[in-house]
């Protein structure tokens, strides 16, 4: 749902959201909304009022548009296939490097090298700017992002993605965080020669400490055609739950996230698309046994897709093992895989 081109390009090495796998060295952190694999995403403590909703004071900054559904999405397990080995190496407080080897029968096997640099301008206890993230495949595909805080309230990002030698994605966005609202403009794949491009504008306003409303406007233009899609979003944050609803020309997306206790989190999601004329309901849960260094995520779908991922940190080694399996009852297919993360 939402923007045609998400402001966050697909992560180069998809990693389970929520950073459950990564050791979380605490050296580097990237503000959420810019999901990058080698660095554990830490929610910025400097922007309160984001999903916790504890403040009874006047509404504070509601966060970004993309993050409204994120808490629910992070509960769901990620599909794993084949074998993956990830080696993360922190070279200094500012620089981190990762090597990934993937062996897979369905997708391409390969080697990927990623590097992350975090600058010296510190805006908060867990945030530093500028952030440069790069990722290169053994076939030459590149993913690169530069995130920088231009002023106290304006943050900007440039993202580029290539497939072999062709540029697939190039976008630039600017985000302004006011006292109780956030607005962002993204320019995607602008091509002056052909006269095509996509512009996405987001706006999210905190009405009350718990309620945030906003909208999105996507305008795309190609030689010969142009169009626009609008969506409205509403998010209500309770003491231990978050309910979000997005309605627009492209369809509807509703999600509910509930934190039952320290260990159990649930998510329910409903998606309907006007383009494909399909709806899907998913239920997911996450069980976090910190004492056993275990994280278990399970999900059931209305398309009869069941999946589960088990992640375990093998103390005392800096090793993390993830086992996952997905079963599609309707199509009678089955996929399983495991990941090993070192460092």
């Amino acid at each position: 749902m939402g923007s045609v081109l998400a402001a966050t390009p697909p992560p180069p090495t998809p990693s389970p959201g929520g950073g459950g796998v990564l050791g979380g060295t605490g050296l580097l952190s990237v503000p959420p909304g810019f999901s990058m694999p080698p660095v554990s995403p830490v929610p910025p403590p400097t922007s309160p009022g984001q999903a916790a909703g504890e403040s009874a004071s006047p509404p504070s900054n509601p966060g970004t548009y993309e993050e409204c559904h994120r808490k629910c999405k992070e509960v769901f397990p990620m599909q794993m296939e084949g074998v993956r080995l990830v080696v993360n190496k922190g070279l200094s407080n500012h620089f981190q490097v990762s090597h990934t080897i993937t062996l897979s029968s369905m997708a391409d096997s390969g080697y990927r090298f990623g590097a992350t640099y975090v600058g010296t301008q510190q805006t908060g206890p867990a945030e530093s700017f500028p952030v440069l993230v790069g990722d290169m495949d053994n076939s030459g595909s590149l993913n690169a992002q530069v995130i920088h805080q231009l002023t106290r309230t304006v943050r900007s990002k440039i993202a580029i993605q290539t497939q072999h030698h062709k540029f697939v994605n190039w976008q630039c966005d600017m985000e302004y965080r006011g006292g109780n609202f956030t607005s962002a403009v993204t320019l995607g794949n602008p091509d002056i020669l052909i006269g095509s491009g996509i512009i996405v504008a987001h706006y999210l306003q905190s009405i009350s400490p718990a309620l945030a409303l906003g909208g999105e406007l996507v305008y795309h233009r190609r030689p010969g055609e142009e169009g626009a899609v609008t969506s409205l979003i509403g998010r209500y944050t309770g003491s231990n739950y978050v309910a979000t609803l997005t309605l627009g020309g492209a369809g509807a997306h509703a999600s509910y996230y509930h934190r039952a206790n320290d260990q159990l989190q649930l998510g329910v999601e409903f998606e309907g698309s006007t383009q494909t004329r399909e709806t899907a309901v998913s239920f997911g849960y996450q069980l976090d046994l910190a004492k056993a260094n275990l994280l278990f995520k399970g999900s059931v779908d209305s398309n009869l897709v069941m999946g589960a991922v088990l992640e375990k940190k093998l103390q005392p080694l800096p090793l993390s093992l993830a086992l996952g399996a997905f079963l599609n009852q309707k199509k009678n297919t089955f996929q399983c895989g495991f990941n090993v993360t070192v460092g």
Partner: protein
Amino acid sequence: MGSVLALSGAGRQNWPFSSETPPPQWDTPPAYWDTPPRWERRDGRLPNPGSFHALHRSCKDVFPQQIEGVKMTVNKTLSSFFKASHTLHLSAVSPSQYRFHVEHRHVDSHGKDSDSPVLIGEMDSSGSLNAHSLLHLSERVRAKAVFQTQQAQFVTWQFEAEYRGSDFTAAVTMANPDILRESVILVAHVLQSVCSGLVLGGELVYHRGRHDEGGILTLAGQYTGPNWVATLNAGKGGAHASYYHRANKQIQVGVEFEASTRTQETTASFGYQMELPEANMVFRGMLNSRCIIGGVLEKRLSPLPATLLMGAFVNHRGDKLQVGLGVSVG
């Protein structure tokens, strides 16, 4: 296994029998590497060489078993004779299945064969049956019957009689005798302990169909060193050579070479097994001349009576990968 199946149409059977071939207790004399080597007996006489099928077993046990998909096994010991196990297998390449396995076998603490018959049966969710029975007719004579069906059709029905002398073994097997089609496969095995450490023997396979008949003779030899075993089978049907070496308490290595005149192919494999009893872990890896690389890790999850199996096999030539996970409870 023996060449009986290699000649018959079934050939390499499509579905493996649990995860192991018939348990080693049937075929090999207990080989305890920590005590004096098995070829030495107190009275100086030569020991029984075991059965023909078990010649290459010590090398084959080092190699990892191919696992695919997710397998969940629940083993339940009902009494000292009776054991049942349920297996649920979810697989990406073959249809998922449930398998029920039952064993009637008296397991003594010494591991010696007792007089009670051994009956093993396994049934699939698609109706395929696999049944083995082993009877001790007398102290030296054993009879075995094997039945295998693929859903409703009988694929293998095999009867074997084995005589274990003091320093030799002789066995006769009749496989798939079919009176209506006038076809049968007869196999005769002989193994003789020639001197301490050396075992020589042979196998004669005679197959007869309605329109053809033929025989194949294979000679076998095995030499056992203090911590190694070298075996060679050679005949008109091909050659099979294996070398097993126990480097220390933790590492075992096996090298195997197979050549077949029927398929005109040769394969060389190298495998190793690493045991870390302190970590409750066993790792088996293998490397093939067909560019197949595989590894399987088995870990006993200590306070729970459960074992976790993780394995992957990569075929570089065909660019295929198979990943498997297994949990065994009980």
